[in-house]
């Protein structure tokens, strides 16, 4: 049996598919969040140099990872929408931006709270912190540009260009701690080296990352559904949906 994937590129069928997926991912998000926080606060040991304060890592690192990853996904779908004129891809890109911006803000905020007791400062203009701040501006720029253009198709195109240009910032954020002298330390977890963390600490952080993934999927699906309804409000199927709920 072959599935006709193209069917789901149509906003109408995606609307219903997304509606079916949301409950599963919501449950998964809650489970991962509860397990992750439990490990983070009660199972993971105290750190040898930072004591209990290091536990902010369980929010900070998943948020920072998600902020970069969501940007790549957003730029990918915006680019697909620009290249192939597929409506749904652009809608997904628009739906990702607020969640990406939220995680970027969370990473910066928890980083400041962590920096004050450990480094002795809320903020420094080193390469890692500065490039992550630029990421927040890119998200905000993408959202405000799209909000400023009335015609959704033109807004999609303009947004896609910002999103694609901004992709260059992602490797800069990621490798900033290797390329330049920064106050921020190097990566504890990377694809090429074994993790520099105790196993339970790592487990807590990875489970919290999964929670962040699930949460993002739920938020993006929900937001995409709203965007679909808004843009397709003049179509027959939305009218039918409206009739059915009345």
């Amino acid at each position, binding site marked *: 049996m072959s599935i006709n994937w193209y069917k789901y590129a149509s906003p109408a069928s995606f609307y219903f598919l997304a509606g079916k997926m949301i409950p599963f991912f919501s449950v998964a998000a809650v489970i991962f969040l509860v397990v992750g926080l439990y490990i983070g606060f009660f199972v993971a*040991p*105290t*750190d*040898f*140099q*930072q004591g209990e304060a*290091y536990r902010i*890592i369980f929010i900070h690192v998943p948020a920072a990872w998600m902020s970069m990853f969501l940007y790549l996904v957003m730029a990918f779908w915006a680019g697909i929408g*620009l*290249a192939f004129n597929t409506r749904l891809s652009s809608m997904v890109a628009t739906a990702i931006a607020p969640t990406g911006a939220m995680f970027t803000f969370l990473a910066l905020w928890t980083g400041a709270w962590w920096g004050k*007791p*450990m*480094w*002795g*400062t809320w903020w*420094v*203009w*080193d*390469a890692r912190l500065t490039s992550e701040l630029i990421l927040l501006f890119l998200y905000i720029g993408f959202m405000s540009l799209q909000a400023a253009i009335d015609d959704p198709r033109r807004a999609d195109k303009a947004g896609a260009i910002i999103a*694609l*240009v901004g992709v*260059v910032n992602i490797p*800069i954020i990621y490798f900033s701690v290797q*390329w*330049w*002298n*920064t*106050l921020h*330390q*190097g*990566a*504890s977890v990377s694809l090429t080296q074994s993790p*520099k*963390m*105790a196993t339970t*600490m790592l487990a807590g952080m990875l489970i919290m990352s999964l929670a962040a993934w699930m949460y993002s999927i739920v938020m993006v699906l929900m937001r995409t559904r709203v965007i679909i309804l808004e843009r397709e409000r003049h179509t027959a199927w939305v009218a039918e949906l409206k009739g059915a709920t009345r």
Partner: protein
Amino acid sequence: MKPRHKKMAIIALSVTALTSAAILVLNVFQSNLVFFFSPTQVAANEAPVGKSFRIGGIVEEGSLKRIDNSTTIAFAVTDTSEAIQVVYTGILPDLFKEGKGVVAQGKIADDGIFYADEVLAKHDENYMPPEAASALEQAAKAQKASLIQQEQ
């Protein structure tokens, strides 16, 4: 050329142009984005003269001294090949310790001493329970001892 292909070509071209622009900008940044200088760089006169800058390295073991029971302290910042004497008055971050990372902002005076007006702690990327850390330390000590024995 079909219009669609032409469009793709334009997109590919602009992405290439933007990427090369970014690479060029990065190259320029490379020399300006230095958050701190290492003692070796300072010794090689790479750090700005007469201006405030940051030095970074390890607080040299056994170099930390408190001056006259005040909040003024003196210590050496080292990168194992060069060391610089630093004097600082003020509150230190919790993680400031001998043998640990530090970034200090200030100026080098004529006497060759770096007078810092801000001292920040730079910790490493390792996270582990204290027991594991002390076990590692023991192992390192044992290894060092056996190396010395072999040399003798």
